[in-house]
């Protein structure tokens, strides 16, 4: 689907309001929202994502026991089952699990934004370059991408963490370094198909520079698949960082990271089941939200894929 670019309706008259100048974009957005809203699972995803974002913003002010996220110890309250005072129970040093989960949302959001952001910043320019230039440049970029895609990202990330040392910062660095190849592949194939479009030839004939063609004609048309992938990757990055935390290579206790919490909580199964159960549910709902939202966005941007 070609998004009508603002220039088409922009007559350049300064008297027009912002709303008038962007009328076609606004109409397009309304249409997108209209399509998105009718998709029940996409709306479930949106609600989950909004709740997650809200909690990551306000959690420091609403948690019942703020000190519990920073390594407080209340041995008298250790391993209490879920109750009115501790909805999700307490852990082995008496910390409120709900508090630690809520504080963990912010860390998870940071993880998701950094990994997805770095991956897109590395991958998108490389993909455009490969797709647009062709020849040896494309060959080299794509073969290196293939090498990175030939092993699961988690495996390479473990290798990098092992080399850099264990910890949440290194885990984020490692995942960021292995996450970009997907974007190269996505953007490269999109750029290849856009390169042959009549409006790109027209722009070139009209004397547009390569940079202008890339930024105002190719990139905007790559944005919707990038957005869909980024939405899904936000969830997948949280899942991957939690996985590293779980096997002991990511965040270390007492950092309130969900995977690391499960890693400790598993030692308290089955009697103290709540310890490992609730962090897992938090990961599941968050990843589910981003995935459903990504699915919904794809249906909106690419009607051919609808219902798949």
């Amino acid at each position: 689907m070609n998004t009508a670019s603002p220039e088409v309706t922009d007559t350049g008259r300064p008297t027009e309001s912002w709303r008038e100048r962007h009328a076609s974009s606004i109409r397009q957005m309304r249409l997108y929202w209209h399509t998105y809203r009718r998709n029940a699972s996409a709306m479930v995803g949106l609600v989950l994502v909004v709740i997650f974002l809200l909690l990551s913003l306000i959690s420091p002010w609403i948690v019942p026991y703020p000190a519990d996220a920073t390594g407080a110890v209340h041995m008298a309250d250790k391993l209490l089952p879920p109750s009115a005072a501790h909805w999700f129970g307490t852990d082995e040093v008496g910390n409120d699990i709900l508090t630690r989960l809520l504080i963990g949302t912010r860390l998870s959001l940071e993880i998701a934004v950094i990994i997805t952001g770095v991956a897109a910043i590395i991958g998108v320019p490389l993909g455009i370059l490969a797709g647009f230039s062709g020849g040896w440049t494309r060959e080299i970029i794509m073969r290196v991408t293939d090498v990175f895609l030939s092993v699961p990202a988690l495996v390479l990330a473990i290798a990098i963490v092992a080399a850099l040392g264990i910890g949440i910062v290194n885990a984020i660095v490692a995942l960021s370094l292995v996450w970009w190849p997907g974007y190269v592949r996505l953007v490269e194939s999109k750029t290849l198909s856009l390169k042959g479009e009549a409006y790109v030839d027209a722009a070139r004939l009209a004397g547009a520079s390569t940079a202008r063609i890339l930024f105002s004609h190719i990139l905007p048309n790559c944005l919707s698949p990038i957005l869909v992938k980024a939405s899904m990757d936000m969830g997948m990055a949280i899942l991957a960082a939690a996985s590293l935390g779980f096997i002991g290579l990511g965040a270390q206790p007492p950092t309130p990271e969900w995977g690391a919490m499960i890693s400790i909580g598993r030692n308290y199964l089955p009697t103290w089941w709540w310890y490992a159960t609730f962090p897992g549910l938090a990961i599941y709902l968050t990843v589910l939200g981003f995935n459903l939202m990504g699915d919904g966005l794809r249906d909106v941007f690419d009607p051919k894929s609808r219902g798949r």
Partner: protein
Amino acid sequence: MALYIGKRMAFLVVMLFGLLIVTFLISHVAPGDPASLAAGPDAPPEMVERIRHEYGLDRPLPVQLGIYVAGILHGDLGQSVRTGHSVLQDLSEFFPATFELVTVSMLIAIILGIPLGMLSAVKQNSWFDHAARIVSVSGVAVPMFWLGLMLQLAFALDLGWLPLGGRLGIMSTPPDPVTHLYLIDSLLAGQWDVFGDALSHLILPAVALCFPALASIIRVNRAEMIEALGQDYITNARAQGISSFRTVAIYALKNAFLPTLAMIGLRYGWMLGGTILVESVFDWPGIGLYATQSAIAQDFQPIMGVTLLIGANFMIANLLVDLAYIWLDPRTREAA
């Protein structure tokens, strides 16, 4: 055809070499000093220097790479500081367990996924379709290691139906090694009790591992079935009064199966990554657990070995899928 396979094999070797360079660079560009790690925390500087010299770590990078590649060509993947064995020896000990787990898990995903995808395509938008969609959406979102723990909690700790972890119970002795796959070796030896024990140990990890693959198979197979069912030849078959089972399960599935097969190849590789998590939950003695324990000990040679092995497996799986494609689809057969 032979030329095509030859080309693909050559490409596979080039890709493996690329992967080798990537893992090599990761290990050597990183700030950590492998010599002082190997020497231990209290080692005097002379000893660190000696180890550095022994391992060739004082030579220029390209020379070190050359030595490493020459070693691999002779079947030498280096030494594990942690286990004290050669990496090759460790990998050949641990890989069969991983291979057995991944294969059984993929079989579960295929056996469940194809009928589920097919049925939800036939009964599009029914409650069954929605239920299958919930499974397929959740399958990729649920943390595999947590699912494993919950399965343990329910079926091993609470109900006590299945064992908690490991490859065999303490009462069983491993069957005579032929393939090193316990299921097959125990059958070859006619030891039904060992077979049953091995199978019961496999079920929970294999189920925990299968969900992302199951999700993808349902999704792709459903979409392809919907597309195939809309084609003229299906209408034609129906008009001719051919039974609807035959129409759906043979005519349509035949055409929907190829993209599903490609997804199976892709997911097989990802499953090898997933075993790292599942093996750590179920104490499954495979290469995933080996990689995790090596990573925690900052023992790098085993990790390079595991990475190369997983990469090689992934590439071979994809090659096999492509060959199956050519074999199954006459159109690609001519193109190759």
